[in-house]
């Protein structure tokens, strides 16, 4: 799992049926200082996230588990919204 900032949305009309009504968001992973780390990715939303929010996402086969249809083709799913930047505590 990684921290990320939602930086945009993706609209796709033609897509796999099980992705219907799913929100696709562009996420930029962040490091501990909330600075960008690596390249942006497209994630399916399972937490109700929006642009600008700090979230965390799950990778791999497990990314499809929040959805009823386990054949939902995703390898990156937003599973939580961090309450605020100040709620990332570190030493």
């Amino acid at each position: 799992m990684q921290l990320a900032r939602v930086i945009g949305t993706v609209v796709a009309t033609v897509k796999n049926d099980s992705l219907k009504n799913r929100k696709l968001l562009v996420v930029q992973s962040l490091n501990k200082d909330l600075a960008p780390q690596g390249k942006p990715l497209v994630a399916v939303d399972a937490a109700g996230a929006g642009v600008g929010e700090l979230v965390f996402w799950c990778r791999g086969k497990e990314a499809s588990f929040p959805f009823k249809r386990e054949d939902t083709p995703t390898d990156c799913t937003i599973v939580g919204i961090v309450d605020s930047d100040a709620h990332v505590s570190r030493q």
Partner: protein
Amino acid sequence: MILAKVLGNVVATQKNHRYENARVMLCESINPEGEGTGNTVLALDAVDAGVGDTVLIVQEGWSASTTATGKAGAAIDSAIIGVVDRIDLLKDAT
């Protein structure tokens, strides 16, 4: 599994229901010498790890959700499954 140092934690009220009562820890992966690699990852805590601990993180879904929530099939891909006491390295091996 990867070696990492626990830096802190993350608070999220709105999250997937399988994450309830779990602690999401902010960790930085380290090399065997203990130096940070600069790569920050999140992991669910399954062993009561604390800030500053060197830990083992499993990055595989079945093991992670079973250890962290007691049941498989959650959208969880990494969990802290051990607190490292020490690492012994063969000198000049690397």
